[in-house]
């Protein structure tokens, strides 16, 4: 076996022989290798994160018909490093009355939550941290940690706006976890496993074709989970200044910022992995590094989609946000789950499996749209009823 077919294993075998050659204990070698792998992965992620800052700024500039960073280095490529330096040398303020420990722990947790996700993200056929057999749940679990970080931040800042932001975040995340989980169960059902890599393996047909609506639900709830516009209520600048990270400065703020960007990208990656065949592509089996490339492309694409949504949609009201989740998204997700499960069972081992699922999704979608239309019509009717000014006056 050569490097190109199985790079990680190749490297690990080499290192293992090296270390044991130095006369280390086995378990020590394992630990060392694990640590090295983690470190490498984290470093890659961080560097990518730094680049993401640039991407973000460029894209938003384009969306807003500007140039964006273009002074420092070619295309302003060096700009993010300048930003980081700036953040690092800023004064690190901890507000009086803040709960110091928690205040400092929060951004670390935020970053951790994102990095933990990378542990199960399969970059290539054989390139992944661990192949957890409960990967899908794991994603939610890390989301929980993200939530925790935000609420810690919000509470520890000893600041109203921060607290409100935290509350909002928690409400939002706890609610949107549900449709997200349900949406992730669809690929689980289709693939018959919860391990993310297994799901990728199973995607001879991209699951987006088998369950387009599932994809939509997942993307929407992912955006909410990330707390990006139109669901960026936790840092609604116009209402609660900056929400949970209002009191943060310097690198702590930077960590929140970075974690958000990386989180977004990661979720792009997961969208790609769960529904768009992950690292699969021509020759990805034989040359895993190609798979990494494919995944990067797809993830970038969805990162860009999320940005697109963010910069083209206004923020929605909190009650609307919750109502949208509880009254529309969750029921739809459950219906879709049930339909998918049934159809999948019925049509298993037939040639109509894919088409049947697609049809089922189309029908579900159509019905949903019909229901929404009827509802909207009735609402409009209610509004059209003319209000008598006299009674109005009487009321006021």
């Amino acid at each position: 076996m050569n490097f190109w077919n199985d790079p990680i294993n190749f490297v690990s075998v080499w290192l293992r022989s090296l270390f044991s050659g130095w006369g280390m204990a086995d378990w020590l070698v394992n630990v060392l290798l694990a640590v090295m792998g983690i470190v490498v992965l984290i470093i890659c992620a961080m560097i990518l994160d730094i680049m993401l800052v640039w991407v973000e700024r460029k894209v938003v500039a384009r969306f807003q018909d500007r140039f964006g960073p273009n002074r420092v280095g070619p295309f302003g490529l060096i700009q993010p490093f300048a930003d980081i330096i700036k953040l690092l040398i800023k004064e690190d303020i901890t507000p009086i009355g803040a709960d110091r420990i928690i205040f400092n722990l929060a951004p670390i947790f935020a970053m951790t939550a994102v990095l933990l996700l990378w542990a199960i993200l399969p970059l290539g056929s054989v390139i992944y941290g661990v192949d957890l057999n409960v990967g899908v749940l794991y994603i939610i679990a890390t989301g929980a940690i993200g939530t925790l970080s935000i609420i810690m931040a919000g509470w520890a800042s000893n600041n109203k706006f921060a607290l409100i932001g935290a509350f909002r975040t928690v409400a939002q995340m706890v609610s949107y976890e549900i449709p997200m989980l349900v949406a992730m169960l669809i690929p689980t059902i289709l693939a018959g496993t919860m391990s993310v890599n297994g799901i990728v393996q199973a995607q001879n047909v991209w699951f987006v074709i088998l369950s387009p609506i599932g994809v939509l639900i997942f993307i929407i709830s992912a955006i909410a989970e990330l707390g990006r516009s139109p669901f960026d209520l936790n840092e609604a600048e116009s209402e609660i200044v900056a929400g949970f990270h209002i009191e943060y400065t310097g690198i702590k703020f930077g960590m929140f910022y970075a974690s958000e960007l990386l989180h977004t990208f990661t979720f792009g990656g997961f969208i790609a992995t769960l529904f768009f065949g992950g690292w699969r592509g021509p020759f990805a089996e034989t040359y895993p590094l190609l798979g990494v490339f494919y995944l990067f492309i797809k993830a970038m694409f969805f990162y860009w989609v999320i940005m697109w949504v963010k910069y083209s949609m206004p923020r929605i009201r909190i009650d609307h946000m919750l109502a949208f989740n509880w009254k529309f998204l969750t029921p739809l997700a459950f219906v879709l789950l049930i339909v998918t499960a049934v159809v999948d069972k019925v049509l298993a081992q037939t040639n109509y499996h894919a088409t049947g699922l697609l049809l089922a999704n189309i029908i579900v979608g159509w019905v949903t749209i019909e229901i929404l239309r009827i509802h909207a019509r009735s609402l409009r009717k209610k509004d059209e009823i003319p209000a008598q000014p006299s009674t109005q006056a009487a009321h006021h």
Partner: protein
Amino acid sequence: MDFMQIIFLLCAALILGAALMVVTTRNMIHAALWLIATLFGVAILYVLLNAGFLAVVQVVIYIGAIAILFIFAVMLTRREMRDQGPQLNNGWWMAVLISLLSFGGLFLLFTNWSGFGKMMVNIPAGTDTLRELGSALVSPNAFVIPFEVASVLLLAALIGAVYVSFRGK
């Protein structure tokens, strides 16, 4: 003293320490956070026991839902940041006594039990415990009834909680 034992001892220390902090710390938010720490430790224990699914579920449910709820409750039931005044009531020494007694009792019982010093057996190859768990939860001749009952219980709790804490318009 092998690797497993070290890890076990570490997270046992984490668990017990955090738990002690939970029951003793003055600041309720800290208590909640310490609880989270404990739960993490327990999750790690699950992993050590090859119950990965439970570990993840532990994190999702306990940390992602329950602990968050606790923090909420603490925030909603306080006036200012710090909790001053004693957090233990007058009968705390009694409580200590009882706890120690019962611990002693339990330990006594354990020690007199034959299977106390039992060692871990290897999971036979080719048994996917996760798959088994899943099928056990939904197979009629296993635990489908308790499972459904639990779900109903959850629904009831949900409705009850909403009703209890609903502030009429």
